[in-house]
């Protein structure tokens, strides 16, 4: 019981914080807008709420620094439009 409690961190800390330091590199993800069909899946599923939709509904990296490279967005992108620049 205690152990599992110890694991439990505040939600914001657990999800929002990126494990990576992007300061010297490219943005965490690369989005191929030509292939993206604006399905909204990445935007909705990203646990860190990294994306915002642009005018066409396609994702923009609104909070790139929050990305923890969890892979959820790219494994769920039906159009192979998201790739990581780090992993």
């Amino acid at each position, binding site marked *: 019981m205690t152990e599992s409690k110890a694991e439990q961190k505040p939600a914001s800390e657990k999800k929002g914080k990126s494990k990576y330091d992007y300061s010297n590199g490219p943005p965490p993800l690369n989005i191929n807008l*030509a*292939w*993206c*069909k*604006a*399905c*909204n*899946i990445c935007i*909705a*599923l990203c646990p860190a709420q990294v994306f915002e939709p642009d005018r066409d509904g396609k994702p923009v990296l609104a909070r790139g620094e929050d990305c923890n490279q969890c*892979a959820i967005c*790219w*494994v*769920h*992108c*039906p*159009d*192979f*439009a*998201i*790739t*990581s620049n780090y*992993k």
Partner: protein
Amino acid sequence: MTTAEKTKAAPRQRSDVILNYLRPKKKFPNVWCAGCGNGIVMSAIVRAIDKLALSKDEVAMVSGIGCSSRMPIYLDFNALHTTHGRALPFATGIKFAQPHMKVIVITGDGDALAIGGNHFIHACRRNIDITAILVNNYIYGMTGGQGSPTTPTAAFSTTTPYGNAEKHFDPCKLAEAAGASYVARATVYHAPQLEKAIMQAVDHRGFSLVEVISNCHTYFGRLNRLGDAVSMLKEYKEKSVTVARAKRMSPEELKDKHVIGTLYEDDKTEFCDEYQKIVDAQMGEK
């Protein structure tokens, strides 16, 4: 090496691995509707194959007709896009003629279970070493939303305008009863589990089925008021239970739930192997 070991042994996979497997010269994006689960399945397949470190040349990817069946067209394997419902016999021809090939069949709920139902149960019966990935979106996507053998009772489709009067198959149960030796289920929400199931299935010697529950929001979703791709994915998350958990649940609790994970597995002998024994014996006798 077990599949688990293979996974571990594989070098850490890059997020852009799929790009290495897309067919050169083929135009992208794919034809599917925005948000269609087919794309999610396709990238899971690629990751699984990549982790298994199969050579592209030894993979034959065979499909029937349907939205899901377009997949092999995009992937850089030996691709056979056949007639509606018949992927498995064509695949049987390839596998039996070249037993060293890894033959993966991509099929839809209509393709595999309506017109192709007979080939499905017979491929299971023979326990031929083919992996079938059945993209179950509960509807005929390609032709515009007619009912399929998995369309739930009372659900709407363009041919069940007053609700479906028929019962539906459980493809996994059917496969097991027909003789398949590996049966698993996942949903497109559960992409990592799906990837793992595909790895195990491809690695398994014998007929393996991976049923993937996938969103066709364009037809099934719209006609049954299930919302867009995102809501359907979220529903899969809520409605799925693992095999382990399902064992502790009552039939009532399990109603409307998707049980995901490995549902059945055995190690009965495989058809090509058995036939090879006959060939060896006869050629020896000569």
